[in-house]
């Protein structure tokens, strides 16, 4: 459950508010986006490593070639 913690500095009172359905949907959408970005980055890294392996060179050697 996602909540907002509200601390009133006049009274010292601490209250908690449950997120609305829209706010929860926003957070879940953000998590899906981040997971997709992470998967894409991992796939790119795997493809890069596969290519290096195929060529039989290291990442530093590839940099030299492209430099």
């Amino acid at each position, binding site marked *: 459950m996602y909540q*907002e*913690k509200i*601390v009133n*500095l006049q009274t010292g009172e601490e209250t*908690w508010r449950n997120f609305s359905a829209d706010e929860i949907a926003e957070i879940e959408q*953000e998590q899906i986006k981040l997971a997709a970005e992470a998967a894409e980055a991992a796939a790119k890294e795997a493809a890069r490593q596969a290519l290096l392996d195929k060529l039989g060179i290291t990442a530093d050697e590839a940099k030299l070639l492209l430099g």
Partner: protein
Amino acid sequence: MSVTPNFSWPLIENTDLVTNLPADFETFADAVDLDLAGLNGGTTGQVLTKDSATDLDFSWETAGGAGAGFTLLNAGGTALTGAATITVSGISDQERLIIVVDQAGCGTASSQISFRLNTDTGSNYFFAGQEVRGVSTWAADNVNAFRGTNSQQTIGFCSDNTSSRLSSSIFLEGGKSTDAKSVWFMTGVTSGSGSSHRTRIGGGLYLGSSAITSVSLISSAGNFNNGTVYVYGSGN
């Protein structure tokens, strides 16, 4: 009895008896003396300052002096844990604020951290600045600009490791005003052995028309899991 138009000091009437003149003049002088008594005192370099909206309510004060410093409004700070939005409310009569975010942690990797004022979700945050990404492979756009108007202002992103920590100082001026407020911030983020964290330095305007009463920190993808926010204020 006639009086002067601005200070209502008693006037000597042209029908007064000459023998009453000394007493009449004493009455007039006493009224002037009483009203202007506050001009006495003070010292070199001080300026006359209004203490309230009441006429003749003033005192001598050191120019640009007392009251300009900051005091901590939320004693001990407010823990950044257990919630995705953490709001410090009850801010009142503060012209300037410094919001110090100390080692905020994102429970969800890569979450972005933003602030919001007065829980205002309108497109009232008009900012620009520079962003640097912490990535293992260099690319020119790892250093990039951000700009635009949003419903909150993002101050940085945690890395893809939940041990990443974000610290920031957010400065606000015009907190008592009903006009736009100037805001600027500087953020640093530790990698926490991850990558893709983003630090930001920026500034701009909060376009809301109410005096500042609350500050919220928002973690976009889940609860905060570490840190403290300190809210310092200055009444002038």
